[in-house]
């Protein structure tokens, strides 16, 4: 399995932000996208995850292969940790949540109501969801925000385990993830140029 993205242009709010993005991730590899705020990392990840259509270009894998984690973790505060994770396990029809709880040291918290968790614990719960999806491509947007050093190490461990099992990971961040083996792609080189206003619809883009 490999994720190959070719000549991808993405838009935010109807305006092209990145163009000509090309990369390829093979099975067992991780790619980290870097770039200043507002360059379009999140937009690119959402496009790859299939949430928005690209303006141009080609994404090599179906959206069914992707598991996506955004800034928001989608945690319901009135449900327990177990119920939150169990829901996603049911939705993705994968069943057992114990390994995911274990991987992010959440087993002891399993019966706590998610509303009472700290920001870091919530983030861990959000990341545990990725394990539960059972999908080969992890698309992660700033995965380590509000995690402490220990939890970042847990995260790195989980990603490595995922890669060792033949998975892929595509991440956007500007913090060190503790994944020294991952390749890094600078987004700055893909910044979109203004379209010619004499284009057919160029005036509107």
């Amino acid at each position, binding site marked *: 399995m490999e994720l190959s993205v070719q000549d991808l242009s993405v838009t935010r*709010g*109807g*305006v092209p*932000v990145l163009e000509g993005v090309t990369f390829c991730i093979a099975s067992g590899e991780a790619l980290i996208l870097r770039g200043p705020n*507002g360059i379009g990392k999140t937009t690119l990840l959402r496009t790859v995850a299939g949430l928005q259509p690209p303006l141009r270009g080609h994404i090599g894998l179906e959206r069914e292969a992707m598991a996506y984690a955004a800034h928001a973790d989608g945690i319901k505060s009135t449900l327990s940790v177990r119920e939150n994770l169990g829901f996603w396990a049911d939705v993705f029809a994968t069943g057992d949540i114990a390994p995911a709880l274990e991987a992010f040291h959440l087993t002891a918290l399993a019966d706590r109501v998610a509303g009472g968790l700290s920001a870091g614990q919530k983030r861990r719960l959000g990341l545990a969801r990725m394990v539960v999806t059972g999908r080969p491509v992890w698309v992660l947007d700033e995965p380590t925000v509000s995690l402490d050093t220990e939890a970042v190490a847990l995260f790195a461990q989980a990603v490595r385990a995922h890669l060792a099992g033949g998975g892929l990971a595509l991440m956007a961040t500007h913090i060190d993830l503790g994944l020294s083996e991952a390749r890094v792609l600078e987004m700055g080189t893909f910044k979109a140029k*203004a379209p010619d206003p*004499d284009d*057919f*619809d160029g*005036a*509107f*883009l």
Partner: protein
Amino acid sequence: MASIWQYANPRKFIQTTDRVLPWIAGAALVALIVGLVWGFFFTPEDYRQGSTVKIIYLHVPSALMAINGWIMMLAASLIWIVRRHHVSALAARAAAPVGATMTVIALVTGAIWGQPMWGTWWAWDPRLTSFLILFLFYLGYMALWAAIENDDTAADLTSVLCLVGSVFAVLSRYAVNFWNQGLHQGASLSLDKEENVADVFYFPLLLCIAGFVLLFIALVFLRTQTEIRARRMRALLVRERLG
């Protein structure tokens, strides 16, 4: 490239409409003045309705354009959904306030006509009620356009609303007919000659309708130009903000 779709290019659209707009507006003015003057001063009074019948020259054309305006928006929305021409979406947006105004004119002239004829300004008659509902649809459509910042998102959402709304408007029409049989007279115009109003009223009425159609087209062209320029300006502002 003689395709009709070339006019979906914003630049081409503005150039073309700039050229034809004075002619359409002029023709609308002539047709309306001649039609209204003819209708108001040079037609006999109806033996039953007296001079009140003459409001027909405003009422029928505006009611027609209220419905046709919505149909035009539906067509433009479909073109946007299928071919994704921005000008089409903006034309639908531009037509909405014009259509809404036509609906209001139809409702107000209807009330003024209804008062002497039926002895009431308003009755929950199927036709009146349908127009009130049509007006609500126009309001919702315009409110949705106004509420969304991203123009493409707004175009998509309003197109679907227009589509779904059209189905429900037709459903409402039948529901309202079922609900109350009504006072309103039958159609003033139809292809069946027997049903029509008499010829003396008919020709000035046709002229007034032509005037309203041309007026509608002129206003929609003008407003579409404005929307195109406004959209262009917003796109430039977003670009500037992104740096």
